[in-house]
């Protein structure tokens, strides 16, 4: 809240005089202000009079209010708390059982003040050290220490053989061997028909000229087609006659006698 910008003069605020000088600028919050006031008591912080400190702080805030200075909320919270603490310190106990005594609260506040002061001094001591790039310098042009990585490959004989096997197998798969399809060719049919025709003067079905061992499928169908085509060829050559009695009916063939 009251924290100032990160960069500024690292000047601690001038010790506020409790009487007149009312200046809320320059404090890093109420604890910081309390610490500044405490330093005015010029005693060891462990022996600080918290009661006196509370009075100083309250007087300070009261003065600020008289001057209608804007006072941040956390300063007012602290003022209220100190007023409460003061009452606890002045009134004889018994305090409520579940609350710390006034003395304990005062000790806690004294501890917090000491701790903040310790940190402020530690910061000052840090900053007073020789700083790199300002007071001390590293080597301007370090050659550097190269790291050379020497790879060690982890491959087992199994990996090697497996890779070779996989590679071989992939190779086999990648070259497609297509077995020549077995089809009954027209040449086959011409030869077969030519060979058989002389023996059949009477009409017989075309199908009966198919080779006997066909068992259907592609080969048989190719044989039917080839034999039919061959019969047309032979009919054109005047070597046989074709007959079909109805559409899609069986086709009959018979040989023609040799032309005279």
């Amino acid at each position: 809240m009251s924290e100032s910008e990160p960069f500024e003069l690292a000047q601690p605020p001038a010790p506020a005089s409790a009487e007149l000088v009312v200046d809320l600028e320059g404090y890093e919050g109420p604890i910081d202000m309390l610490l500044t006031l405490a330093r005015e008591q010029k005693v060891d912080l462990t022996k600080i009079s918290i009661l006196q400190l509370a009075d100083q702080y309250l007087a300070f805030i009261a003065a600020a209010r008289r001057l209608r200075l804007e006072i941040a909320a956390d300063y007012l919270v602290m003022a209220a708390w100190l007023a409460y603490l003061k009452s606890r310190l002045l009134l004889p106990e018994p305090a409520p059982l579940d609350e710390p005594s006034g003395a304990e609260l005062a000790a806690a506040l004294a501890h917090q003040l000491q701790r903040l002061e310790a940190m402020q001094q530690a910061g000052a001591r840090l900053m007073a050290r020789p700083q790199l790039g300002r007071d001390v310098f590293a080597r301007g042009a370090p050659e550097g220490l190269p790291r050379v990585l020497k790879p060690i490959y982890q491959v087992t004989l199994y990996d090697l053989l497996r890779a070779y096997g996989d590679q071989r197998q992939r190779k086999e798969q990648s070259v497609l061997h297509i077995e020549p399809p077995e089809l009954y060719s027209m040449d086959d049919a011409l030869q077969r028909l030519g060979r058989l025709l002389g023996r059949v003067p009477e009409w017989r079905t075309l199908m009966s000229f198919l080779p006997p061992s066909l068992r259907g499928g592609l080969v048989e169908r190719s044989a039917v087609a080839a034999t039919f085509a061959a019969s047309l060829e032979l009919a054109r050559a005047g070597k046989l006659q074709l007959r079909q009695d109805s559409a899609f009916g069986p086709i009959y063939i018979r040989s023609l006698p040799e032309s005279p």
Partner: protein
Amino acid sequence: MTDATSAPVAETDPHADQLRLLEALLFASAAPLDEASIAQRLPEGSDVAALVAELGEHYRGRGVNLVRIAGGWTLRTAPDLGPRLKLEQSVTRKLSRAAIETLAIVAYHQPVTRGEIEEIRGVVVSSGTLDVLMEAGWIAPKGRRETPGRPVTWVTTDQFLAHFGLADRRDLPGIDELRAAGLVGPRPEFVLSEQALPGEATADDEDEDEEDEPLYDEEGPAER
């Protein structure tokens, strides 16, 4: 005058050879070298600690000194010569009081949460403050506190140690005395921000400071 190819004088003396190599290593390295890194590069069986001590003795009082920084060894110009070197200084902007206090709190109380920093300073830490310190490379977030809200904790970096010429975190000025005085370590019994007045809202937020966190090695805070 030496020339670049001057033969090593001490080729045959293993000790002198190790000392030369150590010197070259420390000169060549851009960052402080810890003893393990040195040992990796010196011949097997070299007594690193003794060699470092001997080299340090050699550089005592010279324009360049052997110093222990951030857990390692490195050479630095002698601090008294700084102003006279008239070298280009890396311009460090002057830090604000808030930033210096915050840096000190992180250094002495690490790992520390933002809430804990605020508790010590009694004021909210502006985000710019942590940014500035992080940008300088001096603090870094490290893990989270396992308390409600799992707040990030902050620590100082090796760069912080290097910048301020510290061997390690235990080397922070006055840390032992502060610890002995109870000003670093366990929390005070009563935290003002928690002492809400009746009817008064507490100043903050998430108190992520609790009770059972392991970072302080001393006895835990007393119950209120």
